[in-house]
């Protein structure tokens, strides 16, 4: 189900529709501030992410989009503000502790173990999640192999299971990177530019696969994206980042038709877009 289908279902009173308004936010950031020297990467960020939604973050380079992901996942610590996940503060926790609470992330540059096969990468993530670290039993024992193959199958990567991670093209690397994050069974997945560097012909197929898997497993997603077509088609809401602030926030059809967003973020004159 695409984001627009979700929104239509909501309007029609579908019992399966997202019920963000009646639920507490899964992630809640308040007053986040972080500056690198004179550059304000976060200048009072307030954002709620509702359970089950797909929130796209757009904005020019250097606006602070990745910084938000880094702060949420414990990689960077803000100078001020708070972040609550599932009602509990997570600021000051290590990335490991945050992952264990149910927040996963993927990276702009896929972080695969390049010397291992795709199957081994997936199995390692599954083993990490299971917490089974016996030093003498093989990684590819039947249980992990089956689970890893099932995971790769969901992401359409099963035919590449035996390929080394460094032999994959960018699209497959991005999917494998996200599959590794998904192996940890997060409730919230933060994805940093999941389609950057992916060939235009592959892009929609990859995002469709990704969205289907995440929707099927009930994962809430926040993703940084530059492709407005992807945003329009798959996001429930869009947050526009500009100089460390959220300049606009709302449904894609509203935000992406905002003249200021069109001019300052997308870089086209509103008249041309119309």
């Amino acid at each position, binding site marked *: 189900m695409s984001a627009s289908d979700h929104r239509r279902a909501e309007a029609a009173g579908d019992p399966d529709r997202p019920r963000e308004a009646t639920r507490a936010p899964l992630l809640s950031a308040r007053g986040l501030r972080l500056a690198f020297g004179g550059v304000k990467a976060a200048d009072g960020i307030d954002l709620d992410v509702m359970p089950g939604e797909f929130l796209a973050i757009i904005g020019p380079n250097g606006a602070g989009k990745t910084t938000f992901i880094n702060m949420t996942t414990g990689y960077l610590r803000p100078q001020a503000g708070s972040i609550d996940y599932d009602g509990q503060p997570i600021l000051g926790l*290590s990335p*490991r502790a945050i*992952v*264990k609470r149910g927040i996963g992330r993927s990276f702009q540059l896929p972080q695969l173990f390049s010397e291992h096969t795709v199957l081994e990468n997936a199995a*390692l993530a599954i083993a*990490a999640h299971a917490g089974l670290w016996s030093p003498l039993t093989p990684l590819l024992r039947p249980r992990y192999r089956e689970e890893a193959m099932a995971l790769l199958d969901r992401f359409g990567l099963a*035919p590449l299971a*035996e*390929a080394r991670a460094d032999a994959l093209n960018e699209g497959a690397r991005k999917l494998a990177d996200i599959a590794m994050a998904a192996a*940890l069974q997060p409730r919230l997945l933060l994805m940093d530019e999941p389609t950057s560097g992916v060939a235009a012909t592959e892009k929609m197929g990859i995002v469709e696969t990704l969205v289907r898997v995440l929707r099927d497993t009930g994962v809430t997603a926040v993703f940084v994206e530059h492709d407005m077509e992807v945003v329009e088609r798959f996001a429930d809401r869009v947050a526009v980042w500009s100089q460390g602030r959220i300049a606009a926030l709302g449904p894609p059809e509203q935000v992406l038709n905002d003249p200021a967003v069109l001019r300052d973020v997308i870089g086209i004159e509103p008249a041309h877009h119309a």
Partner: protein
Amino acid sequence: MSASDRDAPGVAAPRPSMRLPEAGLALAGAAALVLAAWAVPWLKFVLTIALAKGVAVLGILLLLRAGQVSFGHSMFLAVGAYTVAFLAPAVPEALLLLPLGALLGGLLGLVIGLFIVRYRDIFFSMLNLALSMVLYSLLEKLYDLTKGTDGIRVSALTFAGAVPDRETQEWVMFGLALALALGFGLLVRAYLASPMGRALAGIKTRETRLEFMGVSARRVLLFAYVFSAVMGGAAGTLVAMTTRHVTPQLAYWTSSGELVFIAILGGAGSALGPFLGATAFELVRVYAAAAVADAWQMILGGVLLLVILFAPGGLWGMLTSRLRGRA
């Protein structure tokens, strides 16, 4: 990789791969060593030392998998050796001293490791070197206890309660070293194939990913470090029991450099690499020293230079490329 996988979209450059029968190669190598020791009796001593060093180099190999180089690892070898030297008068049983030396090596590894796994790259290397030099200085300066650079003569040992004659003892030590080499080789191989071993390699390439998988890279490295220290301690006991004389030189930085030298010479691609490297190292050293007594280090240096330039995978890499070429 199957043919269908090679055709799969998403793969840029499929690579051929072939599993080598490492177990068969290990057994063939062991048989060759036994044959050499039987055919040339004086080689027993050289090969026993080579196997002992190979066990210590297995520890270096583990750290290399994580992208870390220890320039102080011979300190664990020294701990094992001095365990034998200190305790042999009271506990002459070799089969007790051997696990004791390994255990004490592991304990020191745990104490040092808790601190040192916080560091990476040059800092990791230099801290190991610094700590080994502290141990070297203590062994050298505490004369009343260690007899300084004179060293300690290891008193007579028993093997399972028996006191074998010299020839039998040489065979027993050779057999013990071979058994430990095979045993530790198997353990290392199993460890590297386990999730922990795979995560260890991840420290070299994607430490950030490990953390975001909920895995403590420090704990993974600490386990490998302690494991390598245990092997260093075991190797030290073998060296002490074979040479019957222990000096602080064992902890000196050049001894650690020698272990790294052997690791590069043998190649880090397999648990067999350290033993290939150690055997080649000891044989070249013995024959080069006999041929050109004043310049044997130059010959060893030349051999290493040739390996680095023409076989960056070490002797193991050369061997596997030849075997794959034939297949």
